[in-house]
């Protein structure tokens, strides 16, 4: 199994009102926890960092997008999430999950997945899998 260069990583962008965190672990898993309504500053950073962060995924990785506390995003926020989903369609990873929260956010994420052709790479789940 491949070992990611950074065995543990953590990055947080934004504020209580809206932002995200990256979590990586020694198994090459990546979790993005997103919350609130993203201001344009957060969107710009996410749009650049999130697709780059997914490059650490390997064939055995689990990718989790934790949207438990995420609100439906505006046009720019949706585009940043589309960029993430597009990047995931081209990457090898074992399992992709979206953790459910706000039902309307789930609808938005389901729509964005469909628009990106990524609906078969990520499935919705109610809780985080162990170890991510």
């Amino acid at each position: 199994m491949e070992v990611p260069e950074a065995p543990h990583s953590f990055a947080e962008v934004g504020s209580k009102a809206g932002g995200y965190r990256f979590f990586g672990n020694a198994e090459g898993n990546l979790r993005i926890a997103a919350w609130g309504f993203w201001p344009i500053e957060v969107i710009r950073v996410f749009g650049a960092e999130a697709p780059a962060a997914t490059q650490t995924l390997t064939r055995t990785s689990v990718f989790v997008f934790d949207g438990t506390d995420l609100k439906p995003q505006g046009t720019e926020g949706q585009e940043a999430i589309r960029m993430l989903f597009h990047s995931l369609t081209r990457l090898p990873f074992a399992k992709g999950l979206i953790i459910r929260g706000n039902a309307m956010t789930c609808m938005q994420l389901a729509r964005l997945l469909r628009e990106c052709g990524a609906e078969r790479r990520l499935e919705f789940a109610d809780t985080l899998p162990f170890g991510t």
Partner: protein
Amino acid sequence: MASAKDEATKVIYQFYDALEDLLRTRRTGAMLEIWHHTDYVATSHPFGSWARGWTEVKVNWEESAAALDNYRGHDTRTDGIGAIHDLEMIVLGDTAYGTGIYRSRLYMSDGELDLVLNCTTIAHCIDGVWKIVHHHADQAPLAWQAAIGRMVAGHS
């Protein structure tokens, strides 16, 4: 000249007309027009948490319309999707609220999907213009939310 109660009642019914237009045509123009665009507006939908401030409220209505992209149940029907019933209006100066029961019916691929919710809608008069500043609907039953979720995912 119409009374404040008449004006406020009219705008509440216009709100539900705008909702019907949004659900039926996916057009958001009437819905976005009926709201005051301020930072103190708020809305909560049958399948979502609070949206606070105009930016979030606008996104919620746009997403509600987008969620129905896969819905074809009314393509060949002329009956309404939903309406407010038993609307009671209270006017307090330049603010008014309406309480009522919203009933709707969607025609899904696996049958009819009914919804009955208590709703409260608040209108505020600014510079002589009554518009909506708050809308709250009960949370829909989980089975209803799940059916809508399947539709959004393209499975119904």
